[in-house]
């Protein structure tokens, strides 16, 4: 299999080169400012730290504000053994430390190797002042937002006056709003009732945690009943908003889980739904797609961002070819005997698993996530979505509609539908049903490979990857109604969301059990799934 992948790589080589030229070099480890910063911060000389702060100030680096914040919170540690800078939450054995430049996770083995980058008071004040001055006047809206957020609730009166000053000249609506909140946090503690009232109104519209804290504190301290009532009302409003966004987040998590399910199941929807073939090796075809991703990353270690894109067609081809081999070698002798197909393909799945164990070792492989896939999209302080999940949802929909187009709009699709509805008639009309079977199975298997690429980004790549998804995939296809790929989409998304809704109160395992039980009961009620094929042809 390795050689086949290499072969494929040659074919894709040209494409790879082309894309590499376009890809901008963007990695923290190449950044001269951050490299310099690391040397200065790991130094034991106090002066160097002051220099580091100055360096950051002058460079106007886009991460400057995050770094200031982390420095103030004392999250920077340096490792005495390798003189590298790490971000550490708790310096205890077994906790993880994030390498500052590479962003790789390291497990802390000896906590005493890690030393906090400590600042003195002068340096702290320096940072605060820099943040306030440069931050509030920076060109980037983002940085101004960050600055305000950092200064919010700072008891230093100087900080507040700076914000007040900046507020009058601020033009960006969002930043202005945030500044208003920062000011309101202070105003609410003053004694002017009218101003307090306004401040409470301002705070009530904000989802900032500090605004909520301020309101909570106000409620517990104030003697003014009417203001208290107003603040409480505001708090209830905030709670409701938070609840709403939490719900939105659950749905988002559910959709992303659903996308994974749909991706895993959609290849099966073709082979099982359209062709009536029970392919128990479907999970292993997904696994092969994931391993293809791994191999391609090994082949192009300097272009991780690109490797995932290359892996998509590669996995499609590799899994598709394996699928075609399975169809030609075994399944075509077993058409019309679904239960036997089930057993034979299960045998194949065992062979494929063991083959992967023998070639790649039984241990899990790490497939790296490209930098463009990590990150967050922040809508407001309580609702942010992770980009990799978003990409999976988009990817799932792309694959789904591409497949729908293939089935509905291409000659192959027409032939597939013809053969699946009436094999004998299709043959009589000149459709080469054997070839169609082969292509259909190849298509379904190739899509499984693509699913493998997506799964390699969110789960461990190992020999058991396929087994973990095969039952779920069958559930999705059966729940959606066999022979209906829209059904698969709806079923996958429904199960994903249902799972995530139940998880908070039932726990992940119990939620899964409940979903399984639900499907078992559902099939009793509607044996042909959500969207059954009806009519004489479907009765069998």
């Amino acid at each position, binding site marked *: 299999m390795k050689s086949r992948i290499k072969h494929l790589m040659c074919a894709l080589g040209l494409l790879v080169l082309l894309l590499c030229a376009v890809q901008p070099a963007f990695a923290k480890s190449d950044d001269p400012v951050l490299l310099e910063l690391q040397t200065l911060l790991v130094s034991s000389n106090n002066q160097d730290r002051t220099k580091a702060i100055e360096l950051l100030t002058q460079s106007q680096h886009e991460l400057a504000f995050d770094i200031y914040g982390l420095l103030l919170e004392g999250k920077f540690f340096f490792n005495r053994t390798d003189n590298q800078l790490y971000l550490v939450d708790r310096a205890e054995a077994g906790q993880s430390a994030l390498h500052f430049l590479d962003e790789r996770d390291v497990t802390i083995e000896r906590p005493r190797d890690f030393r906090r980058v400590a600042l003195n008071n002068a340096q702290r004040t320096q940072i605060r002042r820099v943040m306030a001055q440069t931050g509030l006047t920076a060109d980037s809206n983002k940085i101004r937002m960050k600055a305000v957020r950092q200064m919010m609730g700072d008891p230093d009166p100087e900080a507040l006056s700076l914000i007040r000053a900046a507020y009058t000249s601020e033009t960006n609506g969002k930043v202005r709003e945030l500044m208003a909140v920062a000011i309101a946090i202070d105003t609410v503690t003053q004694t002017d009732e009218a101003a307090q009232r306004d401040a409470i109104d301002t705070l009530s519209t904000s989802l900032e945690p500090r605004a909520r804290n301020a309101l909570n504190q106000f409620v517990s301290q104030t003697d003014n009943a009417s203001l208290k009532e107003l603040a409480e009302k505001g708090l209830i409003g905030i709670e409701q908003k938070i609840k709403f966004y939490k719900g939105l987040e659950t749905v988002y998590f559910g959709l992303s889980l659903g996308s994974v399910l749909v991706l895993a199941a959609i290849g099966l929807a073709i082979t099982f739904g359209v062709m009536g073939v*029970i392919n*128990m090796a479907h999970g292993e075809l997904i696994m092969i797609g994931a391993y293809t991703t791994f191999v391609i990353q090994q082949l192009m270690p300097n272009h991780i961002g690109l490797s995932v894109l290359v892996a998509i067609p590669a996995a499609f081809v590799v899994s598709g070819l394996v699928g075609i081999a399975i169809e030609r070698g*075994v399944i075509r*002798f*077993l058409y019309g005997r*679904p*239960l*036997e*197909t*089930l*057993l*034979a393909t*299960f*045998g*194949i*799945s*065992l*062979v494929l*698993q*063991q*083959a992967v*164990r*023998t070639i790649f070792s039984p241990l899990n492989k790490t497939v790296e996530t490209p930098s463009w896939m990590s990150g967050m999209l922040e809508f407001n302080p309580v609702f942010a979505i992770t980009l990799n999940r978003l990409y999976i949802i988009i990817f799932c929909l792309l694959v789904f509609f591409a497949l729908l187009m293939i089935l509905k709009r291409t000659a192959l699709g027409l032939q597939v539908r013809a053969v699946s509805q009436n094999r004998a008639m299709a043959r009589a009309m000149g459709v080469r049903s054997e070839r169609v079977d082969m292509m259909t199975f190849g298509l379904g298997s190739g899509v499984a490979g693509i699913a493998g690429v997506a799964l390699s980004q969110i789960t461990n790549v190992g020999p058991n990857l396929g*087994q973990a998804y095969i*039952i779920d995939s*069958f*559930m999705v296809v*059966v729940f959606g109604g066999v022979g209906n790929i829209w059904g698969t989409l709806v079923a996958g998304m429904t199960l994903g969301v249902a799972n995530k809704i139940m998880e908070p109160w039932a726990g992940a*395992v*119990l939620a*899964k*059990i409940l979903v*399984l*039980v639900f*499907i*078992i*009961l559902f*099939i*009793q*009620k509607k*044996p042909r799934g959500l969207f059954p094929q009806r009519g004489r042809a479907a009765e069998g």
Partner: protein
Amino acid sequence: MMLWNLIKEDRGGQILLLLLAIAIIAVPMLNALPPDHALHIPTYTVALLGKYLTLALLALSVDLVWGYLGILTLGHGAFFALGGYVMGMYLMRQIGERGVYGHPELPDFMVFLNWDSLPWYWTGLDQFWFAAILIILVPGLLAFIFGALAFRSRVSGVYLSIITQALTFALMLAFFRNEMGFGGNNGLTDFKDILGFSLQARETKVGLFVASAVALALGYLISRAVIQSRLGKVCVAVRDAESRARFLGYRVENVKLWVFTLSAMIAGVAGALYVPQVGIINPNEFSPLNSIEIVVWVAVGGRATLYGAVAGALFINYAKTWFTTELPDVWLFALGAIFVLVTLFLPKGIAGLFRRKEASA
């Protein structure tokens, strides 16, 4: 005389029962010989053989529903495991104060989880007779409820296979949970004795072997009795032309339900005999993989023959033991290849190679 009628025309069954009778007499005798004697069978081997026999009984139960009713069950491991868990609970209760924590009543894992009393469903399981009833009742009840739902709504074919798989998968996940009170991940183990006999003792192991052989023989005769009766013919009729049977007035769902339940009970007994011989029961017994493997034993031996299922189970499990000690990496390749080759080239299994073309089913 009635017994003879059951196997009069069943050459394979005659051979099987004869071999079992010989084993019941010969194995304990050969085991009692001095260790350096040429014909001595080590106690370890006796226990291994006993384990194989329980798996053969399990295969028999699968053949009853797959071979004769056409229900490809991918979840029979669940009934086996449930029987095994009931036995495991009984054996746990027998440990008494000899556990690591020395608690007079609670098994170690419950002490570890800081539970202060036994959950209600552990009540009474220190009594063997009660455990024996539950060994048959629990798998039977689950099969009955599951079957009543599934067969009434006419879930069949592949769909049924998939929901049986979902059933055992759901049970596996459930039994992995510590909160269930069945030892979670680790399951039930460290058993000491059964009915007062130490499980480590040679005599107990031989006794369990004999019990397994007797259970297999009884299971065979019961299955045979069902198959020989008119009900057996109805089963075959349902398997081959379900709607025809319905239009003749047969309540197909009830036929399926009762045979499925009987089969689950047999599987439960097999599980109960398996656990004391291997000394552990854990949630992996519920894994869908195990259940599919059972089907392969039956396929290899030959569907719808009963003795074929026994032969297949013995053959594959012997091969498994051999491979996993001699060539562990090759085992899954071999098992996978057997799956494929048997379905492609030996649809009637080993039994089909030897069987004359018989008119009876």
